[in-house]
């Protein structure tokens, strides 16, 4: 029988700790596959975040660290500047990156740090029980926006990819979605370009991945994917927002 698909070698054998239907597993897989395909496993250093994916180092077998909440891009800056031969990735959620770590993210991007950020946008703080995030949609009910997010009280969702694309430092900024096989393939393609941007020394790169959180959204995995298509993607459209010459 011909083997056509298998787990990446870089995956440890440890079962992941994610909820059923969560798309972290897909994001991890794309990263591991690309590290292997691009021969980056041996030089990769992944900066894992605070949040559900804090245990990421248990699932992907590379050198790794866990940053303080929001500080991944600063820590990654330190690693990359001190040791430019390393291939440095930050993996961050929307609370981590767009709330408490916004300053570190924007400035790492503006400096054109040669790091790559994988940004998981699932519209809430997953690990702490589904509180409102900067990416929570207007009207969305969370544990800290029980009446639905209201602009006059909570402000508006932040479009991270579009915002960072206005800066000169990033070489590649894109948003993809993990809701369907086609979109997952596109996400992999985007992440490949983001990795390429770092390898070629062109600047900062980020791929925002629209993701699900069935547990905190109080939905089945299928309903959560449907919600992504119906409600989230119209607000957070997928596509490439900044592609400097050489990345394409």
């Amino acid at each position: 029988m011909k083997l056509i698909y298998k787990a990446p070698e870089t995956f440890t054998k440890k079962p992941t700790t994610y909820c059923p239907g969560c798309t972290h597993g897909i994001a991890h897989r794309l990263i591991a596959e690309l590290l292997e395909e691009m021969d980056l496993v041996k030089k990769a250093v992944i900066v894992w975040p605070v949040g559900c994916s804090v245990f990421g180092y248990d699932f992907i077998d590379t050198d790794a660290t866990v940053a303080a909440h929001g500080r991944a891009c600063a820590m990654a800056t330190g690693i990359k500047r001190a040791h430019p031969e390393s291939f440095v990735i930050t993996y961050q959620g929307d609370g981590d990156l767009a709330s408490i770590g916004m300053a570190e993210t924007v400035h790492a991007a503006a400096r054109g740090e040669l790091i790559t950020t994988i940004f998981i946008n699932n519209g809430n703080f997953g690990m702490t029980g589904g509180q409102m995030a900067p990416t929570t949609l207007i009207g969305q009910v969370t544990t800290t926006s029980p009446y639905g997010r209201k602009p006059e009280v909570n402000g508006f969702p932040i479009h991270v990819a579009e915002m960072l694309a206005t800066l000169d430092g990033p070489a590649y900024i894109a948003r993809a979605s993990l809701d369907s096989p086609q979109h997952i393939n596109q996400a992999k393609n985007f992440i490949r370009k983001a990795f390429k941007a770092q390898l070629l020394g062109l600047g900062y790169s980020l791929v925002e991945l629209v993701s699900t959180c069935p547990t905190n959204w109080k939905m089945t995995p299928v309903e959560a994917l449907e919600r992504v298509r119906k409600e989230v993607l119209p607000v957070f459209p997928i596509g490439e927002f900044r592609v400097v010459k050489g990345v394409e």
Partner: protein
Amino acid sequence: MMGERLLMKGSEALAEAAIRAGAQIFFGYPITPQNETPEYFSRRMPELGRKYVQAESEVASINMVYGAAATGTRVITTSSSPGISLMQEGFSYIGNSNVPCVVVNVMRGGPGLGNIAPAQGDYFQATKGGGHGDYHSIVLAPHTVQEQCDLMYDAFELAEKYRIMVVVLSDGLLGQMMEPVEFKDWVDVSKLKTPDWAIVGKGDRPRNLISSFELDPEGLEKMNLALQEKYKKIAENETRYELYMMDDAEYALTGFGTVARIMKTTVKMLREKGIKAGLIRPITVWPFPYKVYEDFADKVKFFFDVEMNEGQMLEDVKLGVNGKKPVLYYGRLGGVVPTAEEIYKQFRLHLGGC
């Protein structure tokens, strides 16, 4: 260039000393009264093919330090009191991640925005943690520009020996004054090796993980106990202090950093009047030299502690003396630097009048 004697401002001299001691990369954010230090690094580091990055905040700069430290690179940041407060989060993570780095705090008047005058109000913060959890950093308290430079070498060596953060606890006076200074030999950075625990890409070895994270309480307790073991070893081996005219002293003055320097003059003034005074000056304020106070408690009539804060080190002095003799105190706040005469007068009040 051993033997080279230069007249330098403290804040620039410390940068030059750090560079000669092998600092490979600097991250920082400007704050008065230590701006000459990052300015000096920004010019000098590229000159030597080393690196300088101005961060967007102190929060970012300490996390950049954390990242660079995790690669086993000699890394330093410098700041002043309010900036150091912002770094406390990073200090705690660095503490439980066992990575080496050097942090200079050029203390200024506080709390809050305070002012830019020299002060010593960050003693508690530096020696008792500051960030969350049971961690310590080695804290060195120089009292001259020369000592500040010498300790820079020790700071990097101690940091690497114990995989710990070393704080050089300076103040606005030591930063702003000019003194002649002689530097020790250059450390050959080309000979510095990437340690086997560093995260730089796993290559052909099993992967490395630098983390302060452990969800299992018993696992985290184990991590904590390992830290405490390390601290115990440091306290046993690295405690430092200076004794000044203490051989026949009947009265022990004590203080750290800038104040201790001024108190040396006070001791001379007292000696001229035939009063047998001496000075105990802790150089490591963590680990604190408790034993020297305990030892002198049998020999002196009382201790007189002077600080530019509201008696923060006083608590440690009292712990050392352990109730055996009176410990008297005089302090100035808000960035006021007491004069030798003022300290002399205060001491004489305790003796029963001038």
